[in-house]
């Protein structure tokens, strides 16, 4: 029931926002999103699946019995963590927009609240169509957030964002429908339940069929992640989106793609995954390096952080396709860490932009003298993002690489990647340190350069409200940096469930290759 509340409360609040007096809108939206966070926390406490795997928070209602479509919710520990990440980021995003958004505020907060519900719905869905509907529906609020509140090139950015992701997910839908139909043929009854379809597809479909389904699902999820070469919508959308939009886009929306890989691609089509993992890993490594190199030459800080997301998410995908617990733990942790640190970076850039109305590194510099508090946070989150040991980014990046590295061994979890994949991807870490530190060097340190222009009502350095936005994220970064095993232990059961089919499949495929007499 708490799961349903998590969807209903933000939507009801979004409708209510449209009728609240204008001066109360911000406060009302904040309270509503805090209420959602409260419910999410209660749900996390009630949730019984921490560490042991399996589903919690279940709720079910029939929707279209003719095709076995139900409104079923439920969470495993990984989805619960992502729900918590969403619940953490949303109030901050709302609080962070208080001064930035001055026009059409009602709609703005309404869309943010709708977005909360849609994203939570994606993580909680246990019926394929509920998943698909929420997955698609996240596009609408985000589209309006970019198209109405974005900067100069917003129309094109929002359209490109919408069409890329819409087309991708339609192809994924066709893949899903194919699986559902094949399962109905097999068992005689329609069902769109994720566990049922997963069990069917992973056991009863041939590897050729699985490969086609993999292709369809990747079309949907790779765009969302975004994986090279379908990443081109992201930098544009990020640069044009308002601050809160960028924060949510980087913090949660991109994770819908990697969550899709975790929830569907790995468990549903394992045979095809084993076959194609090296290919996808190569794509993600190209993405890591290519986006990192692009970051290096950026002068627009927001674009730089946007491209760094492409690079970072590449690590996340690499970890997933390592097919062992290390890689998966790293990957899931990466989803959360990236949400915290990159979300914070977008907040910081937004705060700078509100004051100077530019994001160009050539025009702004040496802000440590003018904005010491801001600069402290900036350096902190950049270090978290680069992967400084002791902060969160390090653990997840390291686990992803380690997972890829050992994926060639023949232990309990043999994989199909190997040391080479990890070694080449590791160059991305070096590049990340370079471009992010260069950015810090330019805008935080060095001689003070500021464009003329007024700060409006904002103080020169951060206000209390802005600090309140950043502190929870900083605490999260330290906590997950020092004590990552809380999260790792909590997700271990769910990860073991997801990986259940792989050891055998990988061994079998290796044997087939050997018996076929040599190289594939």
């Amino acid at each position, binding site marked *: 029931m708490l799961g349903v509340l998590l969807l209903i409360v933000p939507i009801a609040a979004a409708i209510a926002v449209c009728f609240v007096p204008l001066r109360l809108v911000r406060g009302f939206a904040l309270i509503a999103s805090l209420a959602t966070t409260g419910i999410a926390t209660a749900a996390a406490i009630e949730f019984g699946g921490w560490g042991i795997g399996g589903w919690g928070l279940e709720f079910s209602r*029939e*929707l*279209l*019995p*003719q*095709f076995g479509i139900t409104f079923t919710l439920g969470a495993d520990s990984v989805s619960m963590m992502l729900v918590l990440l969403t619940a953490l980021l949303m109030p901050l995003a709302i609080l962070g927009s208080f001064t930035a958004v001055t026009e059409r505020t009602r709609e703005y907060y309404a869309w943010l609240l709708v977005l909360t519900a849609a994203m939570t719905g994606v993580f909680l869905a246990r019926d394929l*169509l509920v998943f*698909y*509907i929420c997955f*698609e*529906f996240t596009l*609408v609020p985000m589209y*309006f957030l970019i*198209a*109405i509140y974005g900067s100069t090139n917003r*129309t094109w950015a*929002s*359209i490109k964002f*919408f*069409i890329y992701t*819409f*087309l991708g997910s*339609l*192809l994924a*839908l*066709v893949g899903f*429908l*194919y699986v*559902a*139909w094949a399962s*109905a043929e097999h068992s005689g009854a329609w069902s769109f339940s994720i566990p049922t379809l997963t069990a069917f597809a992973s056991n009863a479909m041939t590897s050729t069929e699985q490969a086609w389904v993999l292709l369809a699902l990747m079309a949907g999820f790779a765009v969302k992640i975004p994986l090279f070469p379908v990443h081109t919508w992201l930098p544009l959308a990020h640069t044009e989106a308002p601050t809160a939009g960028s924060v949510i886009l980087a913090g949660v929306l991109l994770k819908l793609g990697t969550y899709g890989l975790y929830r569907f691609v790995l468990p549903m089509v394992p045979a095809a995954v084993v076959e194609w993992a090296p290919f996808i890993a190569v794509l993600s490594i190209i993405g890591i390096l290519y986006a990192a190199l692009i970051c290096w030459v950026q002068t627009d800080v927001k674009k730089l952080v946007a491209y760094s997301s492409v690079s970072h998410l590449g690590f996340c995908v690499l970890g997933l396709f390592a097919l062992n617990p290390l890689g998966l733990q790293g990957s899931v942790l990466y989803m959360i860490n990236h949400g915290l640190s990159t979300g914070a970076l977008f907040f910081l850039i937004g705060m700078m932009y509100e004051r100077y109305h530019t994001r160009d590194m050539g025009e702004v510099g040496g802000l440590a003298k003018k904005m010491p508090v801001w600069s402290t946070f900036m350096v902190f989150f950049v270090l978290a993002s680069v992967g400084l040991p002791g902060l969160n980014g390090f653990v997840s990046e390291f686990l992803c690489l380690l997972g890829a590295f050992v994926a060639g061994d023949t232990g309990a979890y043999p994989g199909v990647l190997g040391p080479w994949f990890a070694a080449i991807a590791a160059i991305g870490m070096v590049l990340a340190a370079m471009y992010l530190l260069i950015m810090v060097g330019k805008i935080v340190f060095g001689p003070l350069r500021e464009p003329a222009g007024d700060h409006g009502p904002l103080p020169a350095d951060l206000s209390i409200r802005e600090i309140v936005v950043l502190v929870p994220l900083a605490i999260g970064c330290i906590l997950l940096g020092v004590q990552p095993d809380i999260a790792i232990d909590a997700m271990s059961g769910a990860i073991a469930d997801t990986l259940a089919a792989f050891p055998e499949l990988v061994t079998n495929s290796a044997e087939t290759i050997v018996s076929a007499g040599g190289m594939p």
Partner: protein
Amino acid sequence: MIDRLWFLLPELVMLGGAIACAIVGLSHAAGIRRTLPVIVILTLVAACAASTAVYDASSLESALGEGAVALPWLGRAVIPMVALIGTVLVLVQAGFVDRGYESAVGAGKLRFDPLRSARGEYYAFFLLSLAGLMLTCAAPDLIWLFLALELTSLPTYIMVAIGRSERRSQEAAMKYFFLGAMAAAIFLFGFALLYGATGTMELTAMKDVLVARAAETGSIGSLATLGLLITIIGVGFKLAAAPMHLYAPDVYEGAAAPVTAFIAFVPKAGGAVAIMLLLSITGWAGEGGSLPSAVLVTLWIMSVLTMTLGNIGALLQSNVKRMLAYSSISHSGYILIGIIAGPGAGFAAVLIYLLAYGLGNTATFSVLASLRRGGEEVERIEDLAGLRERQPGLAWVMAISAGSLLGFPPLLGFWGKLLLFIAGVVSGHLVLVIIAGINSGISAWYYLRLVALPLTGSATGSSRAVEGRREVGPRVAGVFACILLIGLPLLLEPMLNEADDAVRDVDAMRSEMTAADDSSEPVG
């Protein structure tokens, strides 16, 4: 024969309503003339009520008796749907026919002249065309089918012409009429070949002949195949399906927006129903319950061409009505997927999709019908920019209906498309469904403009001159349609049950009835 007449009750009600409209329209009192839309709505409600009385379990036996329709219960779903969309459509028409003349009469500048007024006739034709659509569902033979289709179409030619006194409208009406006549000739030719191949006009008898022939020789014979192909292409004109789609953009653009809303739905629904009935003569006796391969391949190619040409055409338009015309072509392509998928899941999906399409499309046109720029209709898409600043309600109606036409969850259009896709996958046409998926992606481009310009754009020079019209009818229609688009998904389960029921084959229903009789006899 007398029991069969009972099944025409809804159509007779419609005919009565049409006559009433034609008479009331002649009244000198403006107040009485103003009741015309009310009469239309009452007629539609009465027809709907009549259909529930007619298509009742008690009349099942006579429905399945001699001269049965291939899909005997089709009217049970189609007539209420037509009544519902007809109600929305008539609200869109409110006040637009003879607008200038009526206001001149109202202002006392002119005396009312019954010979010059077209309002009454217009509503009468409106009802007659809908009656034609209802009759199409009940067609047991080719003659009936032909007459019903023509009854659907002929009034629309006149409606296009009298809708507004512009040259473009007259041109559109002529074009529509001549091409429509040509299409009628084509499918009549097909009918003749079918008659030649089977020696009967009755669809069910035709099916028996062709199924027997297929069982004997392995095919339904080249003459019957050719006849069916020609018929399908001819009926494709009603659907605006490629290669008979080219008239649509010109006609839709030339006609006044409320008329366009009408002709974008009613003839199309008639075409879809007619194709469903016509294909029943093959008995779906091919491999795995499919069509004979020549027919299947033709429909497949038609479907792909229709949706692709429609979507690509729509991308290139700057005129909203032309854009919607091309988009309505692409919807015919999607509908053909359901028709290819066949009786059962496919046809049921077609019915749900028609409902979603009809509501969504009518809502978009209701927005155009509520706006004007100077004395003219709003036609350029840029004119919608920043609509929400002055007409927030209309901007939202446009956005929601475009979203539904695009098939965006959770609106009704999404469920319609989903059911079509499921039907396509189930019948083994995965490639077709993938092509449709890509096409939906393409259509996002232009539907998004209909969402984006009114809601997120800001008014430009020309769009600032756009203002709302005085009539409330179209606005009510738009809002009502949007409520349905959002709310009807909640009723999807009973709707789908009803649709499944409606597309049951006559043979299946006969054997069910026999089985029910057998099991009930010992008790009685």
